[in-house]
């Protein structure tokens, strides 16, 4: 079967829009449960670190936020590439909807890093490789959004932004390996290390729960944004017209007389 046909049939905005609408409440519910359990584990169950004390709890926000900032960027770039190669409308919508969410997780990662760095390293900020490359990631997100906003035609905007996103992907391995390639202030990875993660299980459980929570949260708000984007881009279609203004039955005479 022709892959092009397949994608266009099942990824059509008309099919996707109601499907996303049905899925959002479920993802929102799972997010709430995961956040509740993750916060309980992180704030009440996890013991203070023997060196860092209670400041280690910042990790349960900082690491998931940093992870999301990179993960969302890759999703955005891959979706952008799919839009470029196969001309899939839904992929363009996806890429565009990723950017503001990814940018806000990048801000959160930088801010919580700062709030963790001050008590642990004695400084809010350092131009170290990890922190600088994460800041570049924020600029890439902002550039992506600015470029897209500057071009009126959605197709051309999506194509230009996708190319920017793809060029910027080179920054992702730089962020990830920066702590190994350079002698940085930022500590090396402790979760994604090959073999056994060098983090105690009591800290690992809330960390993984929060990462999962952030991931499902991302899907929830991504679908919300995509639905808005679809309505705008597909406003010339009859199904959007009917979604926005559902055909009302003409008011009967009796109802009019009563009112």
């Amino acid at each position, binding site marked *: 079967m022709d892959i092009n046909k397949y994608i266009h049939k099942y990824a059509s905005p008309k099919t996707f829009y109601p499907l996303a609408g049905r899925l959002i409440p479920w993802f929102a519910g799972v997010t709430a449960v995961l956040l509740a359990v993750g916060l309980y584990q992180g704030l009440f169950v996890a013991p203070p670190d023997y060196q860092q004390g*209670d*400041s280690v709890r910042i990790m349960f926000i900082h690491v998931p936020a940093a992870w999301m900032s990179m993960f969302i960027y890759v999703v955005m770039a891959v979706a952008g590439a799919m839009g470029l190669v196969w001309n899939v409308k839904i992929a363009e919508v996806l890429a565009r909807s990723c950017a503001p969410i990814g940018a*806000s997780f990048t801000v959160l990662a930088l801010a919580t890093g700062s709030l963790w760095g001050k008590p642990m390293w004695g400084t809010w900020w350092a131009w170290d490789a990890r922190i600088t490359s994460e800041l570049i990631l924020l600029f890439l997100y902002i550039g992506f959004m600015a470029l897209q906003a500057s071009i009126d035609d959605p197709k051309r905007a999506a194509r230009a932004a996708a190319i920017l996103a793809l060029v910027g992907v080179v920054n992702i391995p730089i962020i990830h390996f920066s702590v190994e390639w350079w002698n940085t202030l930022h500590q090396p990875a402790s979760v994604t290390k090959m073999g056994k993660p060098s983090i105690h299980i009591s800290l690992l459980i809330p960390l993984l729960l929060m990462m999962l929570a952030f991931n499902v949260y991302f899907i929830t708000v991504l679908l*919300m944004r995509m639905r808005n984007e679809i309505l705008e881009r597909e406003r010339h279609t009859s199904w959007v*017209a009917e979604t926005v203004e559902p055909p009302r039955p003409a008011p009967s005479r009796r109802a009019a007389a009563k009112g």
Partner: protein
Amino acid sequence: MSGSEFFAMGPYGFYVWTSYGLAAVILIVNVLLPLRRRKTVQRQLEEFYRVQKESR
């Protein structure tokens, strides 16, 4: 652990709670923005279809 101990987070209360507060703000804003956008789009499209009908 007492309540005040919990809020103190050792000497790190400010850093820990600011981090969690910021996370809460960002998670909430990212829900509110698309909800508000949804209303704006609805209004804009209603107007768009009204103008279209009139010009027909």
